[in-house]
C-alpha cells in the first residue's frame, strides 16, 4: 500500500513514461468547455443540428452542412465565431449570449491556429491509450522457446527488454490448488489432486482446465467477482436500511451467464436494457437488476414530498449511482468526475455526464413481476404495460382532484390533518408503555382516516366535468380487470430491477415520462442550465455521442442506445475493460492496475499490446470469456512458480513484468467456502433466496444481528455467493477478510492482514464449528493421530504432510485434541495464501 504522496508520485511517473497523449493546450480545453456548456446540447456528435457536432474540436473543424465551423488562423472566416459574436448573436438560440470573455477566448484560440486539433481534424482524445481504436497487434516472435502461446510471446518480449527470466513451471500440486481457487473458489479434493499428479498422459493440464471451466462452481466464483464490480447488495443502505428480498434473481442471472458463457456483448445489453430489447424474455428483465443493484435512499424517495430540494437531490444522486456504475463497470471510465465540471483529466465533458443521466431519467429501482415461462412472461409484461398506461391516465385525473376545493372538502382535509396529529400524540413516549387504550384509539383513528379520505375524493371527483368522471370510473374498472388478469397468470415471481412502473409507496411514484434532466452548474440542483438529452461520451471515435432518441416520449430508447454504444465492436474501452478485468482475477493484478479507471489518473497498462490482443480475442471471439480464460490459463506465464529469485527481484520487486506468478491471499468467500468444504458441511445447492446469516428483526430501521446467528443452522452452509448482503452492517467475519462493501464499486479487493482478522480466524463461531467438523473428517478412515493429521493437511492444503509437520501436529493433537489441530491448520499462512 502506498501513501497518498507515493501514489501521486507514481502516477506522475507513469504519466511521463506511459503516456502517448499529446498535451492538450489550455486554450483548447477552455474552448471545449465553452462548447460543452452552451452548444453541444443541440450540436451533439452524430446527428446534431445542421449536421454539425461541436462535441469535440475535431468535429468543429470537420463542420456541418454549412462547412467547417472553424478556419484555423482566421477568426473572421470562422462560422462558429460569426454565429456567437456581434450585437445580436445568432447562437446560442436560447439563454444569454456568450460573454465577451468567452467569445474572446474562442477568437484567440482560432487565431492561434486552433492548437489541439491537428490538420486531419482528429481529437486529442484519440491519442490516449484507452480511447485509441482497437486493432489486433502483431504477436512478437518467439524468442527462447519458453512460450506456450501468444500471451507468453508478449510477456517474453518484455522479459528480454528488462533482462528478466521467467520462473520455472510450478509443480502439479501447486498448479491444481491455484487453478481450483482461481476458477472455482474452492480447494481441490485429495482425490482430484492425486489423479492430476499421477496423470502422465498428454493434455492432463488442459483437461483439468476444461473440467473446471465446465463446473457450475465456476459461475459462482466468477459471478461473485462481477457482483463486486456492480456493487450488488440486498438492502437499501442509508437510514432505514430495508431488506431487498427480491434482488437475488439478478445474482442467479449473473451466475447463469458466466456458467453459460454468455457472449459479452449480450451480457452488457441485457443488463442495461434487457427489458426493452427482449421484452418477451424474463432473462431480459432480471438482468436489469444491474441498474438497481446499488444503494437507494429510502427516506429521500419514499418519504420526502414531491417538489422539495432534497427530493431532487435524492433523484440526482440515484441517477448518478446508475451512471457511475454503468460506465465504471463496462468502460472503466470515471464519468462521475464530470458532475460538477468537465473532467479534469480525461476527455469527458460535463455535457456527456448529463447526457448519461438523461439515459436513466425514467427508471427507478423497484420490485417487478416476471414469469419463468417466456410465453407467460410476454403476456404478463403486456398486462403490466397496460396497467402503467391506465395508472398514468388516472394519475392525471387525481391531480385535478387534489386541486378541487369546496367548504366540505377543506373541512375534511383539516380533519385528516387533525387525525395524523392525534395518532402522533397517542404514540408512547420514552419510558412509557403503549396502552390498550391508545392502541384502540389509533385503530379507530385509522378507520376514520380512510373514511374521511374516501369521502373527500368522492366529493372532489364530483366537481370535475362529467366525461372526466366517466373516464375515472372506466380506468378504475380497467385497472381492476388488469390486476385480476395478472393474478390469473401462473408462476408469478418478483425481481428487484430497473422499473418504469411499480406499485407506489409513500411518495415514491413512477416517472410517467422521464424526469427532465438539466446540466447543473457546479452540479447543484439549484442551478439548472440547458436540458440534457440521452447520450454518452463524446470522445469515443466513430460512435455517435448523442443518441438523437427522444427519451421524453420513449424511456427505453435511451437505454437501448447506450447498451448499443457500449457493446459496439468499435468501442475500444469496453473490450479493453473486460480483458483487463479477467486478467486481474487470474493474476491478482490487471495489466492496467486500475480496472475502473482507464483515464489519465489511472495506471497505464504494463503490456499495452498484450491487453489489446486479449481485448480483440474477446471481441472477435464471440465475446466468449471462457475462451479467454483458457488462453490465459494454458499460457506458460500463468503456470510459473510464485517463488522469488533475488536477481530478478532487484529489477522488478513488484513483479510488474510477470517473471513469476503472484502469490495471492484468499478472499473472504474463498476462506469461508473452504471452511465449509473441508469440514464436509457445504450445501452446494444453487440459486434462490439468499441465506440470511444473521438474526433479522424488522423495525423502523431493521436490525441485522450477526452475533446471535446460529452457525450450525442450515443457512450457514450455503456457499458465500448466496449470503444475504446487508449494506449498513456487514458480516464481521467476512469484513475482517476484506469482503466487498456493497455500497462501493469494488474493482479490486484489498488484502489486509490485521489483528482483527487474526482474531476472527481464531475465534469466530464459524471457525470453531468448522474445526469440530473438520476434525471429524480427519478421523474418517484414519486409524491413528498421525494419519489423521496427514488427511487434514491433504484436505486443507492439497498436499502431503512432511514428517516434521505430522509429528508436531500429532503431538499437539494428543495433548489438546484434534479440534485444536484443525483450528491451527485453518489459521496457518499456507491455508490463507495460494502459491
Amino acid at each position, binding site marked *: 500500500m502506498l501513501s497518498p504522496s507515493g501514489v501521486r508520485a507514481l502516477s506522475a511517473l507513469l504519466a511521463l513514461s506511459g503516456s502517448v497523449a499529446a498535451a492538450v493546450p489550455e486554450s483548447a480545453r477552455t474552448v471545449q468547455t465553452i462548447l460543452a456548456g452552451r452548444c453541444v446540447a443541440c450540436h451533439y456528435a452524430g446527428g446534431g443540428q445542421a449536421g454539425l457536432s461541436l462535441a469535440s474540436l475535431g468535429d468543429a473543424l470537420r463542420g456541418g452542412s454549412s462547412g467547417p465551423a472553424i478556419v484555423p488562423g482566421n477568426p473572421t472566416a470562422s462560422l462558429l465565431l460569426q454565429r456567437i459574436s456581434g450585437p445580436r448573436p445568432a447562437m446560442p438560440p436560447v439563454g444569454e449570449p456568450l460573454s465577451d470573455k468567452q467569445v474572446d477566448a474562442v477568437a484567440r484560440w482560432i487565431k492561434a491556429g486552433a492548437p489541439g486539433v491537428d490538420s486531419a481534424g482528429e481529437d486529442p482524445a484519440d491519442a490516449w491509450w484507452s480511447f485509441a481504436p482497437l486493432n489486433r497487434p502483431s504477436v512478437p516472435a518467439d524468442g527462447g522457446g519458453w512460450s506456450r502461446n501468444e500471451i507468453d510471446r508478449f510477456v517474453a518480449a518484455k522479459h528480454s527488454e528488462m533482462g528478466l527470466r521467467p520462473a520455472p513451471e510450478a509443480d502439479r500440486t501447486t498448479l491444481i490448488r491455484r487453478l481450483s481457487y482461481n476458477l472455482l473458489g474452492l480447494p481441490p479434493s485429495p482425490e482430484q489432486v492425486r489423479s492430476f499428479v499421477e496423470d502422465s498422459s498428454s493434455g492432463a493440464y488442459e483437461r483439468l482446465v476444461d473440467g473446471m471451466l465446465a463446473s457450475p462452481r465456476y459461475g459462482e466464483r466468477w459471478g461473485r467477482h462481477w457482483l463486486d464490480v456492480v456493487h450488488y447488495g440486498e438492502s437499501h443502505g442509508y437510514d432505514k436500511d430495508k431488506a431487498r428480498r427480491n434482488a437475488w434473481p439478478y445474482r442467479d442471472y449473473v451466475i447463469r451467464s458466466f456458467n453459460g458463457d454468455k457472449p459479452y456483448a449480450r451480457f452488457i445489453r441485457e443488463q442495461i436494457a434487457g427489458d426493452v430489447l427482449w421484452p418477451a424474455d424474463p432473462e431480459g428483465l432480471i438482468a436489469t437488476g444491474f441498474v438497481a443493484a446499488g444503494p437507494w435512499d429510502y427516506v429521500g424517495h419514499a418519504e420526502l414530498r414531491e417538489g422539495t430540494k432534497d427530493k431532487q437531490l435524492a433523484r440526482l444522486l440515484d441517477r448518478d449511482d446508475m451512471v457511475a456504475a454503468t460506465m465504471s463497470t463496462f468502460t472503466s471510465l470515471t464519468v462521475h468526475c464530470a458532475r460538477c465540471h468537465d473532467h479534469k483529466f480525461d476527455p469527458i465533458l460535463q455535457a456527456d455526464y448529463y447526457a448519461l443521466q438523461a439515459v436513466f431519467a425514467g427508471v427507478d429501482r423497484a420490485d417487478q413481476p416476471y414469469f419463468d415461462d417466456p410465453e407467460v412472461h410476454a403476456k404478463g409484461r403486456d398486462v403490466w404495460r397496460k396497467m402503467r398506461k391506465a395508472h398514468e391516465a388516472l394519475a392525471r385525473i387525481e391531480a385535478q382532484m387534489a386541486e378541487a376545493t369546496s367548504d366540505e372538502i377543506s373541512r375534511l382535509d383539516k380533519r385528516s390533518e387533525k387525525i395524523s396529529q392525534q395518532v402522533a*400524540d397517542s404514540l408512547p413516549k420514552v419510558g412509557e408503555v403503549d396502552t390498550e387504550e391508545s392502541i384502540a384509539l389509533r385503530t379507530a383513528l385509522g378507520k376514520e382516516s380512510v373514511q374521511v379520505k374516501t369521502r373527500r375524493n368522492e366529493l372532489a371527483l364530483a366537481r370535475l366535468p362529467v366525461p372526466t368522471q366517466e373516464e375515472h370510473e372506466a380506468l378504475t374498472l380497467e385497472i381492476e380487470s388488469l390486476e385480476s388478469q395478472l393474478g390469473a397468470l401462473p408462476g408469478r415471481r418478483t425481481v428487484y430491477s430497473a422499473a418504469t412502473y411499480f406499485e407506489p409507496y409513500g411518495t415514491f411514484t413512477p416517472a410517467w415520462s422521464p424526469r427532465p434532466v438539466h446540466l447543473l452548474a457546479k452540479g447543484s440542483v439549484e442551478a439548472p442550465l440547458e436540458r440534457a438529452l440521452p447520450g454518452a461520451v463524446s470522445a469515443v471515435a466513430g460512435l455517435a455521442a448523442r443518441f438523437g432518441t427522444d427519451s421524453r416520449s420513449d424511456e427505453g430508447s435511451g437505454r437501448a442506445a447506450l447498451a448499443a454504444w457500449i457493446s459496439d465492436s468499435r468501442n475500444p474501452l469496453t473490450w479493453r475493460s473486460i480483458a483487463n478485468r479477467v486478467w486481474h482475477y487470474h493474476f491478482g493484478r490487471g495489466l492496467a492496475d486500475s480496472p475502473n479507471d482507464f483515464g489519465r489518473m489511472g495506471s497505464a497498462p504494463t503490456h499495452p499490446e498484450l491487453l489489446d490482443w486479449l481485448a480483440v480475442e474477446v471481441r472477435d471471439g464471440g465475446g466468449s470469456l471462457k475462451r479467454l480464460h483458457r488462453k490465459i490459463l494454458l499460457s506458460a506465464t500463468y503456470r510459473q512458480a510464485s517463488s522469488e529469485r533475488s536477481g530478478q527481484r532487484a529489477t522488478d520487486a513488484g513483479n510488474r513484468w510477470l517473471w513469476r506468478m503472484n502469490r495471492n491471499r484468499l478472499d473472504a468467500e474463498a476462506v469461508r467456502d473452504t471452511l465449509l468444504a473441508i469440514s464436509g458441511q457445504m450445501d452446494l445447492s444453487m440459486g434462490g433466496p439468499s441465506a440470511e446469516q444473521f438474526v433479522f428483526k424488522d423495525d423502523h430501521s431493521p436490525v441485522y444481528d450477526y452475533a446471535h446467528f446460529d452457525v450450525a443452522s442450515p443457512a450457514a452452509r450455503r456457499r458465500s455467493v448466496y449470503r444475504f448482503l446487508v449494506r449498513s452492517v456487514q458480516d464481521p467475519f467476512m469484513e475482517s477478510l476484506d469482503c466487498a462493501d456493497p455500497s*462501493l464499486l469494488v474493482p479490486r479487493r484489498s488484502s489486509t492482514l490485521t489483528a482483527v482478522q487474526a482474531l476472527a480466524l481464531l475465534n469466530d463461531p464459524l471457525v470453531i464449528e468448522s474445526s469440530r467438523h473438520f476434525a471429524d473428517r480427519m478421523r474418517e478412515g484414519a486409524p491413528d493421530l498421525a494419519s489423521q493429521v496427514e488427511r487434514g493437511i491433504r484436505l486443507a492444503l492439497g498436499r502431503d504432510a512432511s514428517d516434521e509437520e505430522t509429528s508436531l501436529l500429532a503431538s499437539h493433537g494428543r495433548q489438546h485434541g484434534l479440534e485444536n489441530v484443525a483450528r491451527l491448520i485453518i489459521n496457518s499462512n499456507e491455508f490463507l495464501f495460494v502459491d
Partner: protein
Amino acid sequence: MPTDNVAPTRRRLLQAWGGGLGWIALAHLLRRDAGASGGQSEGLHHPAKARRVVQLFMSGAASQCDMFDYKPLLIERSGQPFDPGGKVELFQSSPGPVMPSPWDWAQHGESGKWMSSLVPHLAGCVDRMAFFPSMVSKSNVHGPATFMQNTGFTVPGFPSMGAWISYGLGSLTDQLPSFVVLPDARGFAPNGPSNHSAGFLPAQHQGTMIRAGRENAIHDLFPPRSADFVTPASEQAGLEVLEQLNRVHMADRPGDSRLAARIEAYEMAARLQSTAPEVLDVGGESQATRQLYGLDDPITADFGLRCLTARRLLERGVRFVQVWSGADNGFPRRNWDSHEDLLTDHGMMGRSMDQPAAALIHDLGSLGLLEDTIVYWTTEFGRMPCSQGAKGRDHNPFTFTSWLAGGGVKGGTVYGASDEWSYKAMDNPIHSYDLHATVLHLLGIDHTQLTYRHNGIDRRLTDVHGHVITEVIS
C-alpha cells in the same frame, strides 16, 4: 505489496495492524520512536496542537435552540405564526407557530455564553468551549446528513473522519486499534456501522466497535462459549505451534513480507486480548469518578460508561474515539429526533448526555489530557424554531450548533451566528467541511493534502471544500 528497506521490523509491526500502513503514518511512528515528539506532538504537515480526538455524536438531530442558540425573539413571539420571510419548507410537516424552548436560559462563565437549563453541566464548561451556531447541512434527511457529518459526503461508501485520521496519523499504541467506536446500547444510528467505515481506505482504519459493558465487548476477541475444546493451555501451545508452521512455510518463500506480517498480526491479537479487558474494566475507578460520569444514575449510566471508557482508551493511545448518543429514529424515541414531544424526548436525551459529556471535559482536564485532546460534539442537523404538531420540532438543515473543546481550541468563543429565529445561519455559515478541516488542522494535517485515490479521484474528507476556522484556534 511493495516492500522497503526502512526499519523492516517496525514496518512489519505496523502491517500487522493492517497489512500496509501509509508511509505517512510509518514516518510518524518512526519519529515517535526516535523520541522527537517530546511533550508536543509533531503534525503530518505542520506542528500539531492536538494528538487525539473524542467525538460525541448526537444521533437524530439535537436542537440548537433548546441548548446553545439563545433567541429572545422566540420567547417574545411565542405562539405567533412563524414568518421568517420566504417559503418555509419542512421535512414532515407544515410550520406550526413559534415555539420557545421549554427550558430556561442563563449566561455562564466569564464568556457569558447563554445556555439552557437542559445542559446545566455543560454550562459549567463554556469557557473551555468554542461554539459554531452557524452550521449548515447539505441534506435534511437523517441518513445522508449523518453520512455528511461523518464522511463529508451524503452517499454511502466514504471513509469516516476517524478512519481518515487513523490513515493520516497512524496509531499512538501497538496495543489497541487507532479508531474505536462506542455505539449507543439501544442500537445503531441511521446508516448503521457504515457511518464509521473505512470506505475505500485500507481496512485497519475502520472503527473497531466496542460494546462497553457487554460480555463480548469486542467481536471475536475470545473464543465463544461453544469452543469447549479451547483451554488456556491449548491456546498457548497452539500459538507456538502455529508460529512454527508459519516459519517453516516462510522459509521456503523468502522475500514475501506479508508472511511475517501475518505472524506478527497474531502477536498483536494476543496483546489486544491481554490489554482490552483491563481497559474496559472500570471497576478500579474511584467512587468520585463514577459519580462524576453519573454511572449510578440509570439515565446517565450508559452514556457515562461510554464517556469514561473513551477517556480510558484515549489515555492508552487510541487516536480517535467516537461516542454515540442515540440510536435510530424509531419509536418509542431512542434518539434526538423529537418530532412529537420535545420536552419529553429532548428532556431525556439531554439529561443522559449533559453530565457525562461535561465529566469527560473535566476528567480529561484534570488528567492533563485535555490540552492535546479535542472534544468534538456534533449532530447531523438542527431543529426548527417553530413547532410541529404543538409539542415537537421538525428538522432544520439551515442552522445547527456544534462545539469543540480541548487541544488547541480557544475556549469561550463563538464563531458565526444564526438569524434572530435560529432558523438559518446568517453570519459565517459553515459546513462539516470547515469543522473537519479545522480539527485536522489542529492535528497537524492540511485537509487538502490528506488524500486517497479511489475510482479516478483523489478523495478527501473535505471533498473540494473546507476552510480552517482560525478564529477559534488558541
